[in-house]
């Protein structure tokens, strides 16, 4: 494992989401841990180059055949060795839902499925690749841990945690080649199912996951300058949700969930489903993609269309606070 210091934070940010994945897996292998690395013709994109060079016996390329990716991974996992399987997030969810449900959900095979370029990063390829409903689909398959790390160092730690976890995991990677740095202190514990409070505050609570957290941080700065005190929670594990932290904040003035995902079935939806059973629950503002196919364009362009830029988040929050 890399020595966790501020240089590593910057290094992983520069590596990007998939580079951080590849680095984590390479280091995990170098730590003398056994696993298979499988991909659907995306070995280089998955950051597998050094794994292929140093541990070629661990690597399997199934070609552009994502359903076969899960089947082959399932077969390899039956040997008792954990398997990492990578493809684009749209294919890792929408295309292979049946195989994921059977091999990972029902059979609980030890596959760590990585959905790369989730969220809006592939918006230039339009609706076929962008905004995959991966959280919604994975949430509807019982028995799968769902992780959505927010920056390079969290991806690195999430991969280690997922590899050590005995059971199926879906890791959702958002962001592109240069990741924002959200965790500035490398010395934080990543525990599956345990959210991380990034900032304390009293008036408004933000819960988010993935690289969109960077926009939340900027929005929070703007709100603080308007004397609105903001708490920010990194809910990196969407399933199982950290219900302890949800109970802790149930009295807050306003809860804002922000995600680069459909509102339907996403993080905000999961949280709303938890609170609906409770007597005491906060007013919730859900920000994300509201039941449409997003337009093609740069990620900034599409985020703006979806109201996910920092200044737009601020306007939405202020609007809601004026109504409450």
């Amino acid at each position, binding site marked *: 494992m890399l020595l966790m210091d*501020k*240089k590593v934070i*910057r*290094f992983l*940010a*520069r*590596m990007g989401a998939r*580079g951080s994945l*590849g*680095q984590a897996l*390479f280091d995990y292998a170098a730590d003398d841990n056994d696993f298979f690395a499988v991909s659907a013709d995306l070995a280089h994109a998955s*950051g597998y*180059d*050094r794994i292929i060079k140093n541990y070629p016996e661990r690597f399997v390329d199934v070609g552009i055949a994502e359903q076969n990716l899960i089947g082959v991974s399932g077969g390899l996992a039956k040997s008792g060795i954990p398997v990492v399987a990578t493809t684009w997030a749209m294919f890792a969810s929408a295309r292979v839902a049946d195989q994921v449900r059977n091999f990972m959900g029902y059979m609980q095979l030890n596959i760590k499925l990585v959905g790369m370029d989730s969220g809006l990063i592939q918006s230039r390829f339009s609706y076929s690749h962008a905004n995959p409903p991966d959280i919604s689909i994975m949430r509807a398959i019982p028995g799968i841990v769902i992780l959505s790390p927010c920056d390079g160092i969290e991806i690195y730690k999430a991969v280690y945690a997922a590899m050590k976890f005995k059971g199926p995991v879906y890791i959702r990677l958002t962001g592109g*080649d*240069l990741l924002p740095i959200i965790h500035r202190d490398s010395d934080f514990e990543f525990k599956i199912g345990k959210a991380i409070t990034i900032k304390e505050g009293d008036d408004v609570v933000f819960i988010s996951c993935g690289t969109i957290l960077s926009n939340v941080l900027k929005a929070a700065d703007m709100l603080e300058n308007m004397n609105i005190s903001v708490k920010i929670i990194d809910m990196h594990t969407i399933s199982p949700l950290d219900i302890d932290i949800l109970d802790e904040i149930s009295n807050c003035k306003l809860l804002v969930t922000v995600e680069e995902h459909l509102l339907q079935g996403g993080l905000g939806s999961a949280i709303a489903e938890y609170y609906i059973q409770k007597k005491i629950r906060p007013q919730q503002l859900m920000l994300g993609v509201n039941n449409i196919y997003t337009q093609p364009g740069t990620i900034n362009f599409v985020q703006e269309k979806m109201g996910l830029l920092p200044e737009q988040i601020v306007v939405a929050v202020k609007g809601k606070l004026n109504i409450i």
Partner: protein
Amino acid sequence: MNNKKYVQAFIEALEIGIDTVEGLEYQAIPQWDSVGHMGLIAAIEDAFDIMMDTDDIIDFSSFEKGKEILKKYDVEI
């Protein structure tokens, strides 16, 4: 002083000896692959407290070229 920091970034990021640094080019040694490159960039950014543009990161193809690129960031080697 800047030269020392620049050379040290290469030594630490690529895990090479000082004798290998001068005249080194991208992919001339196994350590300076695409992953090593990002480690090197991160080390240089950290050493000089700068953030390099993507085009400059791509263009950074050698020890010498790097010196030229860093001038854009007001770093004289």
